[in-house]
């Protein structure tokens, strides 16, 4: 096994990977941008090196700098996390050329699956069912429109190099198509440095169900079953769960077999995910393969009882898989929510800033993976995800209720966040029943008020609380320093000084 591994990422995923590395006795090397000097992942690592200024292109995407750090520190392998260089075949190749193990699939497999239309063609050849669409990127909006009209609206415009919903647009009518296509290209160029977009049929009311696979260098491959990621807002996953509530054992087995078959067809090695659309009749269509660890991997870890990062390490070290398909099973139910620094009261716009207080739920069946803590800052330069939070329960309903309990305990103060919105999703009847599709969020968005204002006695008691908070801080501030209490005062002294204890003249 490796003795030292570099993690070419930041935030929660860098820390999540490092936790497993520490458990394996492997030394950790972090890289960071100038904006992340104070980031938690730098503190958590054994070694840490700055690789450039804040913009990703000048730091986290600098292959040369990152490989230089690997050389300097003697790191034998690089874990790319998700995003950044994780699906970059050129980087995987550069690692190989530099004699450093890339913890992920071979460059050829990334290439085969990375360009979405090429991947579609490969999968069609491998016998994997796909959604009807263009097989190549289309250069202009006008040409794309011709195709869209041929397969019929609604259609989906997607960035060929894309992922995570960036550069993705659903278009329901021809009149809005060209503007959307231009916007998608612009966003794709900005996000991936590649504006190529393609068009495919939009499957109405589908579930987004994906299959986790693991393949080793020795030709073995297994499915770790499915995740239902249908709760999405603007094509960004918000809630993920495993198992999928509507999947029969038979469809589950079929999807797993198809995914392993598809992975083998491209010589895949490592952890990867096959994303499918599942329609009302339980037909499933290949969407794309993510050739990396996913944000939502913990729901699989919880239900199957494995540590996917540890398995990645074993595979990267050339070891055979430690289990067969027959040895794997699902037990219980897990749900993950993504906690974002975004403002539901303000069109969900990102709300970077200082997290003044973060309190994470505890007790049975919860897991929190975060790159932030009280007093740390969510930077505007990177993804606004503050944490992924996972609950496990014996049944889906138990997990759902546990998640509601836990979210009541979760505090992220100082920045706007989506916790109340997540709660609203969890009580939506379609989510409760499990039969929801990717449109489940839309009616919630319409109804959702970020903050339900207090009324009647509750409002009066809240005013009492505010006044007591003021009063007690004043009292504490006036108390003799000799009491020695080094408890948190939240800067009360500054505030207290500016205040007057006097009567309001109305």
């Amino acid at each position, binding site marked *: 096994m490796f003795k030292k591994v570099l993690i070419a990422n930041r935030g929660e995923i860098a820390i999540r990977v490092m936790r497993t590395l520490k458990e394996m006795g492997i030394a950790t090397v972090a890289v960071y941008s100038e904006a992340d000097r104070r980031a938690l992942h730098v503190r958590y690592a054994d070694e840490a090196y700055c690789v450039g200024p804040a913009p990703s292109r000048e730091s986290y995407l600098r292959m040369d700098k990152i490989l230089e750090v690997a050389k300097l520190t003697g790191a034998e392998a690089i874990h790319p996390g998700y995003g950044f260089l994780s699906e970059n075949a050129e980087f995987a190749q550069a690692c190989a050329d530099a004699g450093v193990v890339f913890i992920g699939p071979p460059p050829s497999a990334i290439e085969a699956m990375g360009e979405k239309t090429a991947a579609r063609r490969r999968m069609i050849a491998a016998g994997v069912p796909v959604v009807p669409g263009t097989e190549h990127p289309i250069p202009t909006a006008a040409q794309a429109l011709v195709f869209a009209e041929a397969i019929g609206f609604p259609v989906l415009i997607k960035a060929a190099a894309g992922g995570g919903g960036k550069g993705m647009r659903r278009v329901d009518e021809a009149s809005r198509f060209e503007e959307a296509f231009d916007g998608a290209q612009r966003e794709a160029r900005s996000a991936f440095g590649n504006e190529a977009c393609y068009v495919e049929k939009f499957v109405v009311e589908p579930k987004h169900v994906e299959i986790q696979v693991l393949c080793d260098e020795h030709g073995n491959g297994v499915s770790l079953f499915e995740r239902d990621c249908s709760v999405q807002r603007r094509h960004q996953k918000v809630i993920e769960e495993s198992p999928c509530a509507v999947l029969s054992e038979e469809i589950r087995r079929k999807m797993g077999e198809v995914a392993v078959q598809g992975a083998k067809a491209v010589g895949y090695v490592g952890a990867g995910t096959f994303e499918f659309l599942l329609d009302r009749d339980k037909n499933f269509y290949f969407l794309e393969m993510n050739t990396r660890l996913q944000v939502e991997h913990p729901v699989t870890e919880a239900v199957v009882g494995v540590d996917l990062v540890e398995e990645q390490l074993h595979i990267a070290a050339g070891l055979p898989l430690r289990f067969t398909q027959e040895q794997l099973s699902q037990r219980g139910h897990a749900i993950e929510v993504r906690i974002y620094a975004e403002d539901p009261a303000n069109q969900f716009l990102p709300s970077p800033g200082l997290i003044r207080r973060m309190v994470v739920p505890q007790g049975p069946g919860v897991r929190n993976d975060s790159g932030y803590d009280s007093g740390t800052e969510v930077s505007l330069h990177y993804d606004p995800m503050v944490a992924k939070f996972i609950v496990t329960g014996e049944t889906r309903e138990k997990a759902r209720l546990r998640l509601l309990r836990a979210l009541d305990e979760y505090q992220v103060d100082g920045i706007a966040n989506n916790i109340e919105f997540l709660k609203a999703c969890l009580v939506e009847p379609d989510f409760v029943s499990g039969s929801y599709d990717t449109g489940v969020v839309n009616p919630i968005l319409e109804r959702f008020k970020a903050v339900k*204002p207090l*009324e009647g006695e509750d409002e009066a008691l*809240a005013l009492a609380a*505010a006044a007591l*908070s003021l009063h007690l801080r004043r009292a504490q501030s006036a108390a003799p320093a000799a009491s020695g209490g080094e408890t948190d005062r939240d800067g009360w002294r500054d505030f207290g000084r500016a205040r*007057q204890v006097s009567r309001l003249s109305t």
Partner: protein
Amino acid sequence: MGIDRYVRVPAKRGAKAVEIAVEPAGEDRFVVTVDGRRFELDAHAHASGVAMRHEGRSLDARVVWEGSDAVVTLPNGASKFEMLDARTYALKSATGAAGGSAKPVLNSPMAGKIILVKVAEGDTVKEGQTLVIIEAMKMENELRCLAAGKVVKVAVAAGDIVKPGDKLLELAYDAQD
């Protein structure tokens, strides 16, 4: 100990002034009067706010201070109050900032980079029309018009970096009130 025997805490709930009095009544005990309504409370401050007991009901109020505004969260919801002292209150009344009618200035709701300004000075705009596209955290965000009107002034251009609160546009809404 320096704890006041009887403290009046003026506050605002929306535009309405409220008078609150806090009277210590023993260790961790208080009588709090809110607009004449009397509450006998057990209470203590902790890192996340104020834990209270009222007639047996346990209310762990989360209190987040944003300047002089207190955002208080209870199990049934959350409200923001402006906690005032007499001087500040008088000042605010004078400037008449309490009005509340929709402001004709579009400020940036976030830090980011202006990607596109889709309107020019003098343009007539409809409700829901995209005015500005701003990028932050690699996502494009469209700022839309809340009501029909006219663009009076454009304060930014594509490529500009803005902070939350920076003025983007001035608008004149069509007569409605």
